[in-house]
Each structure stands twice: as C-alpha cells, then as structure tokens.
C-alpha cells in the first residue's frame, strides 16, 4: 500500500460524528426567529452606507444652498413668502411677504450707502444723521422735480410732481429713515434719533409699503408727496402712521 492509499484508508477509518438530539429543534427555533425578524424592518449596514449617508450629505448640501440663497434674497429684499423671518401682509389686496425684524444690512453702520435710481445710478456714501446728497440730478442742480429738497430735509407741499418717479429711499431719508427698497416696499434700516420718523414711532426694521397711501412699486414712487402718512407693516400687522411736523 503506498502512502496515498494509506492516507486515504486512515481518513476513511475516522468515526462519523452525529448531530445532537436537539438539532432539529434548534433549526426550527432559528427559522421561527428569522420569520419574526423578517417582519420587522431594520436598515442594514449596506442600506445605511449606500443610501442614508449620501442622502444626508445631499440634504446638508441643499441646506447650505438654501441658506446661501436666503442671504441673497435678503440682499435683494425679495423675501421668501412665509418663512421664519417674514410675515404675510395684505397690501392693496395683495399678499406681500415682509420681514419681521430689522434688516441686517448696515443697520448700525456709521456709513451707509444710499443708492438712487436716477442720476446715472450712482451710489453715494453719507454719514448717518447728516444731510444726504442723493444724486437726483447728475449735474447736482437744486431742482427736485418730485417736490422734495433733500438737502434741507424739507418737503415741498402743494405742488404737483413734474412727472417721473423718485426713489422712495430719498423720500424716507427726508423724514429720517435710512432704508433699502425693493419693488414692493422699503425696510427701515435705521431711524435717526430725534427725526420726524422717530417722533412718529417708526422703528428700525419696519416694512414701509406706502407713502401717503401710494404703494411703493418698482421704479420708485410717483405723485405728490406731503409725507403725512406712512403705511408700514410690523410683525405682520399693517399700520398707518401719521407723520407729524416738528
């Protein structure tokens, strides 16, 4: 007998090992347990790695984009409708989304930018609390066709406008409100202490939707201004604030 045959014979001589008596019961118990487990859905490690993690990253990315866009919207003052920082107000039978609080831009800045829609679209920096040249005229003339004289902070009443629109920021600046406007209204960034607006109770963060009952629209406000009434929205509530004279 060669070595290979002897090895084969030795292996064949090994005694068989039998399963224990409780073998079948153990199998049936496992089957029952697996059936019960299968009725309960549990995410496997594969599912977590394959789907949940990428989904989480996707949501994080989406959240980042939303936050970024929110900042951009604030900058443009086109607030999203009905989010956490804005309220819905009815102005002229239209739903308008307005911010609840002060605008974060330049509220406490000693130097503010006032942009105008006329005069070549230039922007000037003016110290808060001082008089402002808002650049209504490119040649810096003293005629103000819409009836306001911003340099003296006076409202010229009684005369019809000569036509065209004036930037609402300019009008509001006359009564002491440094604002930033969009096509649906202006947010009061800063109300100068001791100004007409402050005396009337206008506060930082108020959303101004109309001046003398004329809604603020894209391209500015038009018509005759005595600036005797400001329509504003505060915490979702519309208020008409009479502007008193000193």
């Amino acid at each position: 007998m060669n070595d290979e045959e002897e090895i084969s014979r030795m292996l064949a001589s090994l005694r068989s090992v039998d399963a224990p008596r409780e073998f079948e019961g153990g199998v049936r118990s496992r089957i029952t347990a697996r059936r019960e487990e299968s009725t309960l859905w549990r995410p496997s490690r594969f599912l977590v790695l394959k789907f949940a993690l990428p989904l989480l990253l996707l949501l994080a990315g989406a959240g980042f984009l939303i936050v970024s866009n929110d900042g951009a919207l604030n900058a443009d003052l086109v607030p999203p409708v009905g989010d956490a920082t804005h309220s819905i107000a009815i102005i002229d039978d239209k739903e308008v989304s307005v911010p609840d609080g002060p605008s974060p831009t330049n509220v406490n800045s000693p130097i503010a930018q006032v942009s105008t829609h006329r005069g070549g679209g230039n922007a000037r920096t003016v110290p808060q609390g001082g008089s402002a040249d808002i650049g209504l005229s490119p040649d810096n003339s003293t005629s103000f066709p819409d009836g306001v004289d911003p340099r003296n902070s006076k409202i010229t009443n009684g005369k019809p406008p000569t036509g065209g629109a004036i930037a609402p920021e300019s009008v509001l600046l006359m009564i002491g409100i440094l604002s930033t406007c969009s096509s649906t209204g202006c947010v009061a960034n800063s109300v100068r202490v001791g100004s007409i607006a402050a005396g009337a109770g206008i506060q930082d963060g108020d959303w101004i939707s109309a001046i003398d009952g004329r809604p603020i629209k894209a391209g500015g406000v038009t018509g005759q201004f005595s600036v005797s009434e400001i329509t504003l929205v505060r915490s979702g509530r519309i208020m008409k604030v009479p502007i008193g004279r000193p």
Partner: protein
Amino acid sequence: MALDKNELGASGETNRASGRRVSDHQLIARIRNGDEAAFGEIMARYKNPITNFLYRFLNDYEEAVDLAQETFVRVYFAIDRYHTNFAFSTYIYRIASNLAITELRKRKRRSVLSLTGLFQSDESDTTEFQPPDLRPLPDRDLVEDEKSRVIAKAIATLPPKYRIPIILRDVEGRSYEDVAELMQLGLGTTKSRISRGRGLLREKLTGYMQDQNG
C-alpha cells in the same frame, strides 16, 4: 448530473402505500407546498452527514453543529430558488462548504498569531491560529483516540481548496464526480486536488506514520 444517493432509497422516509422511498426532489416539492414534515425528513437525512462534514472541516464540534443548523435554515428559506436539475445533496453540501469557508475567514480575522512547525503548511492561506478545542467531544472514544485526533487536526490545517475535496472523498466517501460537481471543478482538477491534499497530509503525518509503522 451527480448521482443523488438519496434518490435511490438508501435511507429515509418511505411511501407507506407503495413501499418506495420518497426522493429528495419529491420532499423539496412538498416543502414548497408548506409541508413541514417533509422538511423534517430532509433534516433527518442530512443532519448527520452535514454535521460530520463540518466537524471534519472545522475540527470544532459545537461550531460544526451551529453551522449545520444554519445550513438547514438557509435551505429552508431558499427552497424556492433551488433548481431540481442539481442533486439536492450537492446543493446542501455547497451551502455548508460556503458557510464553513466564511467561518474560516472570520477566524483568520480574529487570529493573533500563526501556527508554526508540524502543522504549518507551505500555503500562505493556511497560516491561521486555531486555538485547541478543549471541550469534550460527544464521542468519548473519539476523544481518547489519539490517532483520530491527530488526523483530524491535520485535516483542519489543510487549505480549504484541498480540505473540502479530501473530506468529501476520503471521509464522506463520495465519488470523484460528486466532489467535482459540488466544487464546480473539472474532474481532472478535482482528482489533482485530492491527490495534492493527500500529499500534504502525508507530510504532516510523516512522524506519526513512522511511529505507527515502527
């Protein structure tokens, strides 16, 4: 197709009316129809061969029983996917082999050192630490039989690709054709591996065989 020994009525349940033995494939069909007794019959036919096969493969009785039970659980839940153009014995041994190989891989990951010396194979995939199983085996005689113990330990250190065909052929007594089909190898490759496995065993058992002959 491999010969299914149980198709020939070597043992197991018989049809009482006809006196003929029910084949594995008939039992499978009954299990698919919800016949739990048929599954019990399948277990009765294969639990000992599968447990023995796994015990020889792992050299650990409790682990072998655990994997044998798991084998039947897998069979039960995958019964609809079993194709009857294969012998059921081939199918169930293949499941058991895969489970055993997976278990070996787990052991290898848990290993902290390698065996050297007598049972060190020249194959790189056999360097694994297998702590001695000090628990009593079910058969007291087997425990006391040094020869069986040494052979079993030598088998357990063979690389899986030699261990499986050696156990199936020389321990279980299955034909070369069965082994080839189960391992999904050609007949020549299977015979070669069995021969190579025997050669490795001979190297491991050289000292023991000389003592026996001396």
